């Protein structure tokens, strides 16, 4: 029996892809702090493709392709469509996308369709469209249409994007990628998924997290507004009354 297993194993070994590479990677910042002067931030993703720990190989054989997917916190989003009724334009149809990423960017070393098969890309949520394909009570055709429009709108606001020259190889195995996170990037936990492709297959992947956080005063304000809204509202009114009074005193109206 044991011999039979060994025989089967021996037959299979040459067929299985040899996972001899691993990815060593990092991000330039692990937290992005939103201060009052926050106007976006630049991030660098870098890494190198090295032989796997148990591998006997000393060097890795390319060529490799690298794709970095940056995913923001999820939100429920609605896409709405206006139609012309009774002479005016109004929102008549809407589709809600539950747990939709608030931020999604793909950086790649060359054109995605040249890197891998579209199905493989979709399965791994590497294409923006993959996020709008989740089953939706609105029905398939509508989900498809509104999903595409939602992605277009998100792209216009700089929240979704694909940069197919976003990853640069410094050597055969060392890459770096730069991303400018816009000021409209919502705060919360972010995930950066890095995929290494070789001959159209994923041979290594790694995910790392970073956070976009309001700090100091912005954090204090945002927290008070949601956690003690009554006090926050009263504070707004006191501030308004004081400013108005001060204005009157200063200018002696």
């Amino acid at each position, binding site marked *: 029996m044991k011999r039979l297993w060994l025989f089967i194993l021996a037959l299979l070994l040459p067929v299985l892809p040899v996972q001899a590479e691993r990815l060593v990677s990092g991000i330039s910042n692990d937290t992005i702090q939103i201060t009052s002067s926050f106007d976006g931030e630049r991030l660098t993703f870098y890494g190198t493709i090295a032989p796997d720990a148990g591998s006997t190989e000393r060097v890795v054989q390319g060529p490799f392709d690298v794709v970095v997917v940056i995913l923001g916190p999820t939100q429920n989003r609605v896409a*709405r469509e206006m139609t012309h009724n009774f002479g005016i334009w*109004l929102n008549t149809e809407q589709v809600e996308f539950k747990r939709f990423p608030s931020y999604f960017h793909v950086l790649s070393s060359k054109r995605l369709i040249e890197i891998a098969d579209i199905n493989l890309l979709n399965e791994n949520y590497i294409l923006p469209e993959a996020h709008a394909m989740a089953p939706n009570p609105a029905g398939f055709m509508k989900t498809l249409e509104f999903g595409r429009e939602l992605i277009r709108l998100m792209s216009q606001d700089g929240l979704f994007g694909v940069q197919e020259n976003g990853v640069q190889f410094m050597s055969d195995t060392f890459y770096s990628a730069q991303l400018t996170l816009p000021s409209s990037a919502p705060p919360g936990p972010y995930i950066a998924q890095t995929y290494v492709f070789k001959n159209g297959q994923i041979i290594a992947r790694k995910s790392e997290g970073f956070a976009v956080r309001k700090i100091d005063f912005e954090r204090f304000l945002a927290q008070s507004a949601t956690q003690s809204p009554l006090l926050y509202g009263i504070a707004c009114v006191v501030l308004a009354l004081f400013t108005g009074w001060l204005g009157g005193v200063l200018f002696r109206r």
Partner: protein
Amino acid sequence: MQIYLPIAELSVNLFFLVGIGGAVGFLSGLFGVGGGFLLTPLLIFSGVPTSVAVASVTGQVVAASTSGALSHYRRGGIDLHLAMYLILSGILGAFGGVATFSILRANGQLDLVIAVGFVVLLGFVGTLMLQESVRALLKQRKGVVVRDRQPNQHSWIHGLPWRVRFKKSRLYISVLPVLLIGLFIGFVGSLLGIGGGFVMVPALVYLLRVPGNVVIGTSLAQVVAMMAATTIMHAVQSQSVDILLAFCLMVGGTAGAQFGAAAGQHLRGEQLRGLLALLVLAVAIRFGLSLVLTPSDVFSMAVAR
């Protein structure tokens, strides 16, 4: 210089905010109105989410009306008794307005209702004001003495029951129209993010015949109290009051208002009213066009709760 607004979650140029606050403050000082009807649309058209714009301008209107209300109070230009009725009914109306606001926002119809509200309200008030001021200007040119107010003219409003004596306004009238005016302005003001001074003043003058020396003061006192209550309600209900945005607008607004008031001394009442009417109509037309013209993008998106 960019400043990050923590509730709107976007960064805006600080000088732009203080600038439009100042410009609107100047106009509000010039015409003696709160300026909410200009500020809310300006913010919406410059990309601030509608809900944040409405709620934050509510806070700015409080600041803009405070100094005026205080100076009228010192001069004894406020009928506190009448203001009390208007404030209480106004706050009641604002409850309805803020609740409607939340429902509309969840259904995606907030922008539509605000646009329609601005078109109807501003269009109506603007047309009336324009008519009135043109008539006054024409009469003046012919050399007829214009009287602002006919004190002994009574209408059906003065025949309603539950009459109350308002000493300072020298009125003995039913509380029904007073409460209705308060309710209406509270509802519309909290929904559209305007103080409603430009509706309140004509209503007090033409419907209730409140004498000129207490009209502005009473209206301002009502605006301050009602909008203060509305700000708190918006903060609790929709959590869309951006204190930083409101503060930038307040600073610009209170400064601008002083220069506006000084400039207003050089213009005559009818001319001022005529100009204000044109401004009000311009805003109404701008909103009207946004409803009628084919939008550049029929799709829009929002974060659902």
